């Protein structure tokens, strides 16, 4: 399958800075904000957002990580992805503005699971959603509050996000199905 | 009644006469009439010819040890089904053990077995009587009456005679009758609760073991008593190397002892219970079909047993055919019944020793025919031989025919075999009892 780069490291950096600004703007500052990265690649993205927000607002932002394996609605397909990472949120989320951070926003099922998981940990004031890529094809009535880049796709394409902390480099690519199989829209 | 039969062109193997050649065999009026060069038989009217080219033709097999379960356990086996299985396995005479319900400890029960066998039996059935009343090990049966009723020996098989005193009395008594005491040698206190050989597999599987010594102690005791009393002792299903050694020394001393070994003890080891060599986790782990008493032992024991067969320490191969229902076997290993349904796989499984170069065909046939027949004696006529004038009990088998064991095809009600699915080479083609073909292999 041919792989094409859609975002470079600089593109990702710019998108994250913009999203950080939007988060601050929407919440009128950064007080009471908790960033929660979704395992695996949402975690480093949330840490980068936190660093940016801290430098804007000069306050420490708590950052946590969330594994949604225990909340998935498709446990019987687990054998493809059996590893559960630890959920680790360093602060009580009750009455906080929790911003969930994920790399790719697709069907919405992971976000549904993440919201359930968060609710089990406390009662946030609000839950917001920040994603690097929104590729469409929602199956649930969920939308993102902050989007790094909208990339309309067909469902047989695959979006891959590489982050330095996990993959050694920053980039977003699209894996196209075999030639002629789809009509790709830009 | 039965037609005259000419078995033509087979490889005649009769250890009783030392015959080992391609020849013709003529049967008339249920007796062996003539044995000689191909095509040279005296002409007969009403003659049926069986082409035995490529087959071994030998005396019908004599099984000294099987369980026909009737009366009392007809759900496991009946005399009808058990003897049908015997015929399929090439056995023309089977000696049935008395652990029935009621046990064969009275003339009436012996008569019942003999009558039923005459009417329904496919092969000749010779009963073995109990040593003690109710197989309780306490009081001797009326052994003389049982002898008159036609038993060929005495045994409390399954439950050994535990008391040395009772055993010595039984031997004294049987010595006068000229019949052997057949003992299942097991020190029940030492084997108590065990379900397989006491060794590395039992240690691994967490099963209680039956030590080899449990057998050897009683073999040694019985030999001492046989020496004391002068009685004939037949040691049932020998399973350990030391038992073979003890019996060998007793024979050297002139003690009147004979011994038998089963096909499964000659071919399987304790590792079968694990599934396969050092592997677990397949359908065969804790397979109750491999649970048998005495238990399957080790490769070392197999080697000693084969050596014992070759040097004459062990006289006979007996099946210890022990059919059980699926209920008796389809349960937890420790709770399952002991025993293997063995009549129908005996020859094929033993032929694996011949094909593997561990045993020669002549010795094998001798241990299935002439030698066990000698232990029974001649009160039922000469068995295990093709001598002219004797009962025409003949087995024809193809030593090279390959087949796969499928217990569903068994004539026996007992489907409990550890050989299910095994590919064997060697198959019984026809079994003739008193000149009558009682079993014929389905043509392919």
């Amino acid at each position, binding site marked *: 399958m041919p792989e094409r780069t859609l975002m470079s490291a600089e593109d990702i950096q710019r998108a994250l800075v913009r999203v950080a600004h939007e988060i601050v703007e929407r919440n009128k500052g950064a007080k009471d904000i908790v960033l929660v990265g979704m395992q695996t690649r949402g975690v480093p993205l949330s840490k980068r957002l936190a660093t940016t927000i*801290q430098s804007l607002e000069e306050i420490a932002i708590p*950052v946590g990580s969330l594994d949604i394996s225990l909340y998935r609605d498709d446990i019987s*397909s687990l054998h493809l992805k059996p*590893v559960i990472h630890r959920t680790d949120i360093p602060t009580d989320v009750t009455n906080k503005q929790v911003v969930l951070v994920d790399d790719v926003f697709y069907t919405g099922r992971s976000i549904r699971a993440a919201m359930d998981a968060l609710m089990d940990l406390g009662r946030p004031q609000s839950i917001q959603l920040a994603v690097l890529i929104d590729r469409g094809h929602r199956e649930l009535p969920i939308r993102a509050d902050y989007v790094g880049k909208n990339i309309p796709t067909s469902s047989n394409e695959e979006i891959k996000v590489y982050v330095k902390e996990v993959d050694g480099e920053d980039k977003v690519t699209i894996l196209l199905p075999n030639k002629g199989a789809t009509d790709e829209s830009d | 009644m039965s037609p005259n039969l000419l078995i033509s062109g087979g490889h005649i193997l009769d250890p009783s006469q030392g015959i080992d050649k391609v020849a013709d065999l003529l049967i008339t009026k249920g007796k062996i009439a003539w044995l000689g060069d191909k095509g040279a038989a005296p002409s007969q009217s009403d003659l049926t010819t069986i082409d035995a080219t490529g087959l071994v033709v030998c005396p019908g097999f004599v099984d000294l040890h099987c369980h026909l379960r009737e009366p009392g356990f007809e759900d496991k086996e009946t005399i009808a089904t058990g003897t049908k299985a015997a015929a399929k396995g090439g056995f023309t005479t089977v000696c049935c053990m008395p652990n029935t319900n009621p046990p064969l400890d009275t003339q009436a029960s012996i008569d019942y077995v003999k009558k039923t066998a005459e009417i329904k039996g496919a092969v000749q059935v010779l009963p073995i009587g109990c040593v003690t009343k109710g197989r309780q090990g306490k009081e001797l049966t009326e052994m003389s009456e049982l002898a008159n009723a036609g038993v060929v020996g005495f045994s409390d098989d399954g439950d050994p005679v535990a008391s040395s005193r009772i055993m010595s009395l039984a031997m004294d008594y049987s010595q006068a009758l000229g019949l052997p005491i057949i003992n299942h040698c097991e020190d029940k206190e030492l084997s108590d609760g065990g379900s397989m050989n006491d060794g590395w597999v039992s240690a691994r*599987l967490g099963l209680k073991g039956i030590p080899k010594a449990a057998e050897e102690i009683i073999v040694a005791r019985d030999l001492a008593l046989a020496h004391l009393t002068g009685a004939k002792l037949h040691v049932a299903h020998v399973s350990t190397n030391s038992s073979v050694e003890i019996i060998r020394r007793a024979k050297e001393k002139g003690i009147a002892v004979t011994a038998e070994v089963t096909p499964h003890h000659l071919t399987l080891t304790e590792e079968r219970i694990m599934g396969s060599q050092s592997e677990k*986790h397949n359908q065969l782990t804790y397979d109750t079909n491999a649970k048998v008493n005495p238990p399957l032992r080790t490769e070392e024991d197999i080697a000693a047993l084969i050596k014992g067969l070759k040097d004459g320490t062990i006289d006979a191969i007996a099946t210890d055919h022990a059919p059980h229902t699926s209920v008796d076997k389809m*349960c937890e290993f420790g709770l399952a019944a002991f025993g293997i349904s063995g009549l129908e796989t005996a020859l094929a499984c033993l032929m694996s020793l011949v094909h593997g170069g561990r045993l020669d065909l002549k010795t094998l046939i001798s241990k299935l025919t002439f030698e066990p027949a000698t232990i029974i004696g001649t009160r039922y006529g000469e068995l295990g031989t093709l001598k002219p004038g004797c009962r025409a009990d003949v087995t024809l088998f193809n030593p090279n025919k390959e087949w796969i064991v499928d217990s569903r095809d068994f004539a026996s009600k007992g489907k409990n075999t550890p050989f299910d699915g095994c590919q064997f080479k060697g198959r019984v083609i026809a079994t003739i009892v008193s000149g009558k073909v009682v079993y014929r292999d389905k043509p392919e």
Partner: protein
Amino acid sequence: MKAIEPNSSIATPETFPPPSVAVWQHSHVLDLDDFTQEEIELVLETADAMAEVLTREVKRVPTLRGKTVVTMFYEPSTRTRASFELAAKNLSADTVSLDASKSSIVKGESLIDSLRTIQALGADIIVMRHSQSGAPYLATQHVTCSLINAGDGWHAHPSQALLDLYTIRRHLGTLANLKVTIIGDIMHSRVARSNVWGMTTMGARVILCAPPTLLPRGLDSFIANCQLPNVSIETEIEPALKNADVVMPLRLQMERQQSGLLPSLREYIQLYQLTLERLSLAKPHVLVMHPGPINEGIEISPEVAHGAQSVIEEQVTNGVAIRMALLYLIAGGKNK
């Protein structure tokens, strides 16, 4: 304006562990002898995530919603059974418990019948305890649902061995090259047998220490035939304890003495009880473990059982996490 130092935990570039390559293949958990090191690691990692759930105020996640877990115990047990049931409930499974130890069910066909009935009633996972070694192997031939062996006779107790591994790893970081000494009734111990597999697979050395009458006769050839060079046998406690990292006395059933396997409890206590004095032969960081229930004053002195080195209570807590992990992996890994 003061420059804010970024939170150090955020600024340090975090190294992410490489994603585990283990793929869960087991439809059943019958023993640890068919587990690879990677598979055991996977269970332990999963248990880590489950342990986090157990620290929450509401210890419940919806993972196994709609799944039915049936515990069938053909032998009395309190802790293992409670542990499995709590684990199932923490994962939101429906649980049904069948106490077969009191019923008239004893033999064969009935076990298969009960299993089939339970399956027909809709069980997804059966957790079975049985007094007969090998009973779960029989069971898996007659059901299509998953089965977890919660102890069979003298043979295996995989969840106990896993929780032992987990407890050790939490305290000592790794199993590799540790000396683990198991003392007592090895012959009748499913815990010892499963631990032999689990510990050696994870790189530990295992010393089995018992009076000669409580060692299975074929044990040395078992070790040789299964190529377990890291397992050794010892009949004296002092050398067995020397430099041990982990010590695990086993429960001594009173009937062992009654059936003549021991001359007297007094002699057993004198020769094999884990006392503070004997424990001092082990390494300073030694962990004292026990599969429970404890006979205080028999195989272990009260000071050791409740002493600073004891992690016996923690084993029980960890048992829930391990059993949650097994239920989760079994429910998800079944690829039928």
